[in-house]
């Protein structure tokens, strides 16, 4: 047995094989190959593997969705078999004396360029197919697996740390838990794990060695323990906890369909945070009453170019329609800082958390902003969409956002496109500046939603990405809680509602404080809804005190 100790960042016990995340994007170099014959064989092997994969894929989709999609994959298989294409790779190998990867890349570029140059839109579009096929051969050459997980059975995913764009592409049905070397409780892996309701442990450091790959392990996301091939005593302890966890899950099921109200009748809006339309299933199965934060970044992170209005519209509409008239708060683009997107071409910043991020990018690039707002307003016709702007510090920013909204609404009026004029507009409260001018901000908008992760970071001057700040990074700090109180008082004075959509919303130990402050809405990971509902239904709002606000 090998025991590792990290920091538990998402609760729960899981049991399965450890699997190391395979990172794509190994750069292809111009370095000469040592043996051309070996490279030739590598190409042939990758070619055969690609053909087999594509034919399997075709068979699979033929059963699921029918002939049309299957034919696409079959055509792709034919591309891979094409004599000229393969000959071009082999010739390049011989001429350039390069690696198999480079030869495949050059052949792919050549044929894609040939199609792109044709005076026929249909054929031009086939260039994308060639690129797709080329990438598949390259992946097979380099041992990269789409979705990062090449395993038949679900695994405990191990990694140094995962970038947001990487977590989005993971095949989530294959993940039982996360264990990472770096990262903190606020890392994207941790947030993703909590959304999925699976255990995660971070900060394992060098003890998480690659040779643990493939071995069976139990992990406990509460204690931060990883037990590889546990002995009988440890195994029994983990299993007991696992069973208790299953019992608890069953108990929580009785909370479904119950109202979110305290014993003395104070109603709370209990909503969910989601990162993509896929998460809706979890919201509905956990009986979330709305979406308090739909992070629109997934559209930008998962793509290698600006997502189109149509693409965005479809995603927003899907969520709005699935929630059937319940509120869906969609946050506009919030990249920058720790979430980087290559094609935005943002300057490298010394201090990105204080740099050009979130609403600042949108106000600097009206076209990017306009595309998103158009998609949001168009989606508003299909449910109860609310638009939320992140990282607000000033009243003029909100006014400028609202002007952009007015402009988009006027455009849609002229085009005769349906949308809801009464679409709510709100802002994130996550900077100390927004707290200090909260009364003025409240007059401009329909709601406030507090992003506690950033509010804590900016209020306490503690980098949320740093994992060695420890006790200095304290989201329970009276300064943070007092900030909440100031914002809540300002919101209520203006007659608008205030919610919390940060991680703190699900912190049971703060529920009484939130009730005393008068928070109207809590937006949490779908898996936190039922436990929180159980807690709300046991509380008495009138007796809650502000004692945690004292120093």
């Amino acid at each position, binding site marked *: 047995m090998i025991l590792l100790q990290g920091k538990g960042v998402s609760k729960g016990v899981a049991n399965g094989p450890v699997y190391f995340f395979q990172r794509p994007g190994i750069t292809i170099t111009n370095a000469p190959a040592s043996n051309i014959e070996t490279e030739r064989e590598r190409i042939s092997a990758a070619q055969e593997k690609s053909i087999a994969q594509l034919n399997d894929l075709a068979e699979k989709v033929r059963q699921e969705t029918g002939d049309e999609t299957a*034919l*696409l994959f*079959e*055509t792709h298989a*034919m*591309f891979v*078999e*094409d*004599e*000229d*294409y393969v000959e071009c790779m082999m010739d390049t190998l011989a001429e350039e004396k390069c690696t198999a990867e480079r030869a495949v890349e050059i052949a792919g570029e050549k*044929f894609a360029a*040939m*199609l792109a140059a*044709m*005076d*026929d839109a*249909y*054929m031009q579009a*086939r260039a994308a*197919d*060639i690129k797709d096929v080329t990438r598949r051969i390259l992946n097979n050459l380099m041992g990269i697996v789409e979705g990062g997980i090449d395993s038949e059975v679900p695994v405990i995913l191990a990694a140094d740390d995962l970038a947001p764009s990487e977590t989005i592409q993971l095949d989530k049905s294959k993940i039982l838990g996360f264990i990472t070397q770096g990262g903190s409780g606020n890392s994207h892996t941790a947030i993703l794990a909590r959304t999925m309701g699976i255990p995660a442990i971070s900060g394992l450091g060098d003890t998480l060695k690659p040779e643990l790959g493939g071995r069976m392990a139990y992990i406990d996301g509460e204690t931060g323990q990883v037990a590889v091939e546990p002995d009988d005593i440890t195994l029994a302890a983990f299993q007991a906890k696992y069973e208790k966890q299953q019992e608890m899950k069953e108990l929580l099921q009785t909370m479904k369909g119950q109202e979110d109200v305290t014993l003395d009748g104070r109603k709370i809006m209990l909503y969910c945070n989601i990162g993509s339309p896929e998460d809706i299933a979890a919201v509905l199965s956990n009986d979330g009453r709305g979406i308090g934060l739909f992070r629109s970044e997934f559209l930008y992170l998962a793509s290698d170019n600006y997502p189109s209005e149509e693409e965005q519209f479809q995603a927003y509409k899907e969520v709005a329609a699935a929630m059937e008239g319940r509120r869906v708060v969609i946050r506009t683009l919030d990249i920058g800082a720790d979430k980087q997107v290559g094609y935005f071409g943002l300057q490298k910043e010394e201090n990105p958390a204080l740099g050009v991020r979130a609403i600042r990018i949108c106000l600097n690039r009206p076209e990017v902003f306009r595309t998103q707002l158009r998609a949001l307003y168009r989606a508003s016709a299909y449910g109860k969409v609310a638009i939320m702007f992140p990282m607000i510090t000033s009243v003029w920013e909100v006014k400028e956002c609202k002007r952009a909204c007015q402009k988009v609404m006027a455009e849609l009026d002229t085009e005769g496109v349906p949308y809801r004029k009464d679409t709510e507009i709100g802002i994130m409260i996550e900077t100390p500046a927004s707290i200090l001018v909260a009364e003025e901000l409240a007059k401009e908008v329909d709601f406030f939603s507090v992003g506690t992760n950033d509010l804590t970071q900016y209020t306490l001057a503690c980098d949320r990405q740093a994992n060695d700040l420890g006790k200095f990074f304290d989201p329970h700090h009276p300064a943070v809680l007092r900030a909440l109180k100031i914002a809540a008082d300002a919101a209520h004075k203006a007659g608008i509602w205030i919610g919390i959509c940060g991680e703190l919303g699900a912190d049971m130990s703060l529920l009484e404080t939130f009730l005393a402050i008068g928070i109207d809405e809590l937006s949490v990971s779908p898996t936190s809804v039922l436990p929180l509902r159980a807690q709300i239904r046991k509380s008495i709002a009138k007796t809650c005190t502000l004692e945690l606000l004292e120093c």
Partner: protein
Amino acid sequence: MKKFEYTINDPVGIHARPAGLLAKAAKALDSTVTIATADGRSAAASKLMALMGLGIKQGDTVSVLIEGGDEEANAVAMEQFFKDNL
């Protein structure tokens, strides 16, 4: 050598999927099948990308040449293939 001419009916011409089917069909024969356009360009029917590269559109007339093997039977099979798919 056998040869026949055919005018493309398919609205998008010899696009990816039919080209793929054609390449597959041509490979299965024991003859060498060549497709030639009116402006004198040609490609082996067994080569998918080269076929697509000819950019053959609806209304274009192509010559199909069948050489070697059982030319008679293969020409009939090819002609039927064009009628069914293109």
